[in-house]
């Protein structure tokens, strides 16, 4: 059973999201991906205004409307606009079909201004996917590191938070979040460097490791390989490929009456 934490409507042709999601699902079928999470639309906006993130979330809502048994949506928010983000969280998640949020590179998640969003996600049992990177050349001004995420996680010990990309440099990213039991790592969206998943399982336990691809910019092939190729037990592979995400989303899916 494969549930994929991380997908976008890129890498395929198609003028509408409906066309694009249909094509992406063909690839998902080939690779045995049963459920695919999508967030953000296009054009890319690294620092979206409320108007922009609403528009992108509308694209996601449209895409998943015909695929509610296969595709889940996370709402794209921007910590720079806490009030508008909270309202969008109500629209897309509390009152809509989405089951999580995506925070990207506009606003460091260590900043307390983001706390109301995190608290509300906790109440809704919505998944939180926070992008992180550790670029040796330096991050963008608003781009969070795994250490920033650890600071956030310590302020909200009862809320599950996903450390997106594990910081890219996973050798440091894994260590940065190791002490925070409410943090899981997303392993998608980086090169398929060998040893990644082995280290993650060794240091965090397989329960805190979640597969995702970051299609269409990445391939399913390179990202699934991180799990298939890892020297870990079959039971751990099942947790990483789907069971962990399913466990995390089960309360909110139940609340929404989504068949699992």
């Amino acid at each position, binding site marked *: 059973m494969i549930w994929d934490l991380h997908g976008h409507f890129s890498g395929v042709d198609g003028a509408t999201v409906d066309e694009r999601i249909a094509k992406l699902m063909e690839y998902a079928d080939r690779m045995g991906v049963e459920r695919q999470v999508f967030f953000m639309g296009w054009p890319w906006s690294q620092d979206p205004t409320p108007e922009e993130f609403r528009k992108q979330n509308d694209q996601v809502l449209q895409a998943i409307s015909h695929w509610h048994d296969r595709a889940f949506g996370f709402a794209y928010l921007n910590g720079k606009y806490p009030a508008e983000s909270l309202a969008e969280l109500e629209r897309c998640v509390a009152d809509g079909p989405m089951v999580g949020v995506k925070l990207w590179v506009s606003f460091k998640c260590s900043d307390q201004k983001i706390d109301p969003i995190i608290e509300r996600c906790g109440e809704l049992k919505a998944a939180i996917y926070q992008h992180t990177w*550790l670029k040796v050349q330096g991050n963008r001004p608003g781009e969070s590191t795994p250490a920033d995420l650890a600071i956030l996680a310590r302020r909200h010990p009862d809320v599950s938070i996903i450390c997106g990309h594990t910081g890219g440099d996973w050798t440091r990213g894994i260590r940065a979040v190791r002490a925070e039991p409410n943090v899981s790592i997303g392993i998608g969206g980086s090169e398929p460097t*060998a040893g990644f998943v082995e280290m993650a399982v060794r240091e965090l336990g397989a329960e805190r490791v979640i597969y995702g691809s970051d299609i269409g910019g990445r391939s*399913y092939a390179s990202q699934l390989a991180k799990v298939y190729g890892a020297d870990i037990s079959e039971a751990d592979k099942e947790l990483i490929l789907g069971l962990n995400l399913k466990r995390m989303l089960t309360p909110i899916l139940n609340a929404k009456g989504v068949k699992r």
Partner: protein
Amino acid sequence: MITDININLSQWPFRRLPLDETSKFVARLQQNGITQAWAGSFDGVLHRDVAEVNARLAAECRLHGEGVLIPSGTVNPMLPDWRDDVRRCHEQHGMRSIRINPNYHGYKLDDPVCDQLFQHVVTHKLIVQLVLKMEDVRTHFPLMMVPTVDMTSLPDLIQRHPDVRLILMNNYSTLRSETLSKIAQKENVYFDISHAEQVGALEKMTNSVPYTKLLFGSHAPFFYLEAALLKFKESELGETMTHAIQFGNAERLLNEQ
């Protein structure tokens, strides 16, 4: 039957890899249907005594290669008397190809030494495996940030050396489309698939490069071997293209010598 033209033996300088012991690695290659693998050495990236690196690599392939590994020696034209390394690769070790790492070794593709190297390999009938990068530049060791090979002058270099059979390794996202369109049709230029990305990566790659120029390469054990293998599940290429990329093209390239 698969020929993997992009693997390395020995150890990556910055961390141990799960499969950096030759016998373990070869067993994994065999389990996955790799019948021939062109092996470079991680040591060639940083060591200066590349004659020793290449001798050790050749011995390792002979002793522990199980008939699967064929060595691809390193040549660094910034070292004194590098021509003798080319000669030894060919005459002493019977190699069919060499690896070059211009970014780690400190020269540009339009430096005269690169022309000298290309002229010289022709006399030894060696294939050149040009490695554009080893690792995502964003995750390099902070005191050793090595930019990816600058490809701007590649089309001219290829133009000047039509006799050099050249494989561009770890190329995806490094080759801008305008450069790619200038070189994709060149007879003597090949591309490995190790870094091909996006959903259906190989379907896209075969749209921009003739499938007869693509070679199965995994960049293992730095990458999980499965990444290259699974690309053939994600893209529906059909039997002709699949066989060519996994085996036929590499065989033809070797037989051209």
